[in-house]
């Protein structure tokens, strides 16, 4: 990793950022602190305001209100080229007419560094991304993963106080993505970089981030570590955007301090842990598919249901089942694959899940149908782009 840089990432603070486009609010009073050396991801569907936020930090969009602080100093009135922020763009935005070396040297040339210093820094940056020997290639002669690493080297070579990334792995192959995830994470830790990353890809967010801010309609729905968000999503939106969920609408039948019994609209009764929200009694439920287990004869759980297997999808290390239970609900269940075994399509099975596997939210209506199979129009709104 050669002579590491002396600088470390700066802390960043967004203070009441707001952006209106005409009469629509793209980002609504967004405040956020990112610690020095932290990797924070803005995760959300398109139109959630995450890209606009990134553009405001980078200086390409002027906020309607609010202020961006880097190392405690406001930068909102600076032009993009004065901000000292490295950006890795979605499709890398490498300069096609410049060799790899000159691409990486670009920010140093703009800063009028002496040639010797440039050569040394570029070599350092290319070594950092393990492309030391490709300096004389043109970008179009590189593979997608190599281009991505050149973009990274170019964004890091001038030791910016902050690194922004826009869907950094989106253009890569599934396989390559896994390799690059590890590499990115390692670099970020080694150089102690402050990174703000924008993505709509939950896996990218989970694997890279120290903390994730899930955005929706210009606001942060929840901010926390990947585990916090996955295990304890605070809204149905977060539960479904991050990982798969069985979403059900239900009514509270009775409750005590630690438990409640709810009945879904289709008539399935269920024990749920924790104090169910007060009020009308209408609630929304979410259950992670991997929290539902197939039960052997005689095994018991807080909640148990008989079911028929409608569909079996083999995923290699896991299997996803679509079950129909007598009340009419469809449940997604995800289990580890059992070599040469496991239930098959059409089988009658018994499944169970514990009371604390059920997440309960106040409010009527099924937690939006996103990601749930039967109505195939669901999830359409969440296109790329």
């Amino acid at each position, binding site marked *: 990793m050669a002579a590491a840089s002396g600088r470390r990432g700066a802390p960043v603070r967004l203070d009441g950022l707001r952006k209106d486009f005409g009469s629509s609010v793209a980002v609504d009073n967004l405040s956020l602190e990112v610690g020095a050396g932290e990797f924070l991801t803005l995760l959300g569907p398109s139109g959630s305001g995450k890209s606009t936020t990134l553009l405001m930090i*980078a*200086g*390409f969009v002027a906020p309607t209100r609010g202020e961006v602080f880097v190392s405690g100093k406001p930068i909102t009135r600076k*032009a*993009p*080229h*004065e*901000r*000292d*922020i*490295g*950006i890795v*763009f*979605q*499709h890398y*935005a*490498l*300069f*096609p*007419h410049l060799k790899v070396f000159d691409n990486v040297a*670009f*920010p140093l*040339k*703009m*800063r009028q560094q002496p040639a010797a210093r440039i050569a040394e820094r570029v070599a350092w940056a290319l070594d950092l991304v393990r492309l030391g020997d490709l300096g004389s290639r*043109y*970008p*179009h*002669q590189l593979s997608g993963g190599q281009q991505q690493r050149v973009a990274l080297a*170019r*964004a890091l070579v*001038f030791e910016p106080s902050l690194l922004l990334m826009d869907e950094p792995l989106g253009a890569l192959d599934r396989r390559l993505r896994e390799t690059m995830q590890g590499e990115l994470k390692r670099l970020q830790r080694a150089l102690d970089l402050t990174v703000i990353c924008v993505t709509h890809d939950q896996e990218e967010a989970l694997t890279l981030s120290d903390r994730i801010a899930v955005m929706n309609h210009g606001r942060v729905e929840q901010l926390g570590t990947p585990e916090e968000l996955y295990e304890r999503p605070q809204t149905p939106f977060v539960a479904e955007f991050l990982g798969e969920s069985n979403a059900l609408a239900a009514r509270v039948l009775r409750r005590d301090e630690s438990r409640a019994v709810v009945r879904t609209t289709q008539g399935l009764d269920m024990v749920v842990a924790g104090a169910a929200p007060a009020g009308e009694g209408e609630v929304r439920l979410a259950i992670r598919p991997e929290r539902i287990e197939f039960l052997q004869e005689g095994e018991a759980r807080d909640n148990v249901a008989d079911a028929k297997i409608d569909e079996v999808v083999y995923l290699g290390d896991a299997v996803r089942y679509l079950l129909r239970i007598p009340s009419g609900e469809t449940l997604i269940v995800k289990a580890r694959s059992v070599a040469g075994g496991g239930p098959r399509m059409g089988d009658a099975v018994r499944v169970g899940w514990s009371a604390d596997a059920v997440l309960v939210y106040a409010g009527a209506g099924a937690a939006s149908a996103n990601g749930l199979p039967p109505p195939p129009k669901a999830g359409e709104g969440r296109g790329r782009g």
Partner: protein
Amino acid sequence: MSLDRTWDSPGRSASVVLFGLAALVVVFLIVPVLVVIPISFSSSQYLEFPPRGFSLQWYERFLDSVEWTSALWTSVQAGVLATLLACVLGTAAALALARSRFPGKALVVGFLVSPMIVPVIVLAIALYGVYAKLKLVGSLAGLVIAHAALGLPYVIVTVSATLQRVDERLEHAAASLGATPWRAFRHVTFPLIRPGVAAGALLAFIASWDDVVIALFISGTRSGTLPKRMWEGLRSEIDPTIAAVSTLLVAVSLALLLVLELLRRRSARLTGAVAG
């Protein structure tokens, strides 16, 4: 991995159509032009084809004549200066058009490319009227301005087309890396649109090099261009020097086209076909 572009199909019938067309154009256009070339090297005293023998007499006559050489000099000056002017203004206009949005933009574009649409004879008449008042008739400056206006639309069109293919994110990237807007233009945008500027420059030069009508109206006797002098030559006597001048005109146009094509290929090779 996509269904790629290498299928073996309708190539054959397409090629037949193509060769037929090329043959037609060759017969009706190229052959007549090509005939001019041997005639210009003829040792005969008259315009005749096929020529009887080889000589450079008409080229010698061309070079010996002050009238012809000063016309050549005027053509070159007007062409080069008009091209420079058209390129600077046209590139600036194309950039401004690509990067701004305002009501009435279509109208402004219309104004800028109007020299391509307004019939050249109307333009010539109109310019004569104005230039007469401004005392620009017969001056090189007048000719350069008029020819630059002729070439401007070509530069705007070619540069705009190239700009469309340049990813705007490259400019964002340059800014994020510390480049001021001017440096981002100089080091990123301009190198990428250079092929478009070069193509526009070629077309602008040819528009000037080619022009007969405007030159006839607004260039005076002292500042006549080659095509104007040819026109006058044809009016007075049939002079085989015309063949030599024609050959020269075509040769310059073709040479420029060739240079442009070579530049284009080189840049395509360097940047991997499509820039951005």
